[in-house]
């Protein structure tokens, strides 16, 4: 069972605060339940799958698009402030409450849906459930927050390690290059010294042979 809880302010009395809890199974488009409370009284009602289809048909809107609108109006909550209106009209005698939700447009507004909510006989229980729901959500979010924070620290530590290893690798590569060149130069210079020596000996041998030839 999915649930959301939002604060709403009816157009007829923007100073008043109501709490709107919407609940549904898997998909809002398959029907949903509504609990409305002002902190003292509470009303409840449901909107069935068929009613959703009927509303979409009545306003000649694609059903999927209509359900998306319902989600934005009833679930997303405060973020949609200004794009949606709520109207609440209480009939204390009949213990009913008429609840409707409208979509605002530049040139006017149209009613997305409306229903009659029945007054709940034990509103305290509903209020306790609403506060309890909030505390449970807070607990879960806090736990998730702590997990994310730990994950964050681990990722930073991993990144930091890898950065250091990269630095070391770059240094090691530079050192390797310098080191190999310096050894190569020493070995190469040995060969060059040998070549110079052999060339000197060869020249001496050639000169000696030439001298001998002259002497003969």
């Amino acid at each position, binding site marked *: 069972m999915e649930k959301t809880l939002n604060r709403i302010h009816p157009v007829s009395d923007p100073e008043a605060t109501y709490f709107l809890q919407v609940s549904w199974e898997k998909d809002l488009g398959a029907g949903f339940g509504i609990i409305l409370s002002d902190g003292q009284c509470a009303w409840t009602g449901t909107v069935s799958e068929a009613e959703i289809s009927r509303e979409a048909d009545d306003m000649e809107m694609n059903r999927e698009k209509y359900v998306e609108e319902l989600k934005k109006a009833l679930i997303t909550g405060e973020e949609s402030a200004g794009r949606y209106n709520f109207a609440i009209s209480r009939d204390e005698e009949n213990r009913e409450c008429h609840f409707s939700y409208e979509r605002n447009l530049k040139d006017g507004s149209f009613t997305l849906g409306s229903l009659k909510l029945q007054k709940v006989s034990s509103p305290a229980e509903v209020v306790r459930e609403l506060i309890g729901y909030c505390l449970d959500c807070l607990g879960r979010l806090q736990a998730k927050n702590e997990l994310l924070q730990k994950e964050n620290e681990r990722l930073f530590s991993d990144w930091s390690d890898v950065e250091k290893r990269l630095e070391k690798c770059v240094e090691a590569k530079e050192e390797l290059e310098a080191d190999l060149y310096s050894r190569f130069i020493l*070995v190469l210079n040995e060969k060059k010294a040998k070549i110079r020596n052999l060339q000197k000996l060869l020249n001496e041998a050639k000169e000696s042979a030439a001298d001998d030839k002259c002497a003969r």
Partner: protein
Amino acid sequence: SPDTKEHFAREYDCYGDSYTADTDVAQLKEVFSRMKENT
């Protein structure tokens, strides 16, 4: 012996690399590694 010393001095440089025999990667690596120890 002095003869052996003289022979190696003729054939190999002070790092142990042959003056005349062609070298390859493995041999050159060995020469370089000995240089490390010497150094």
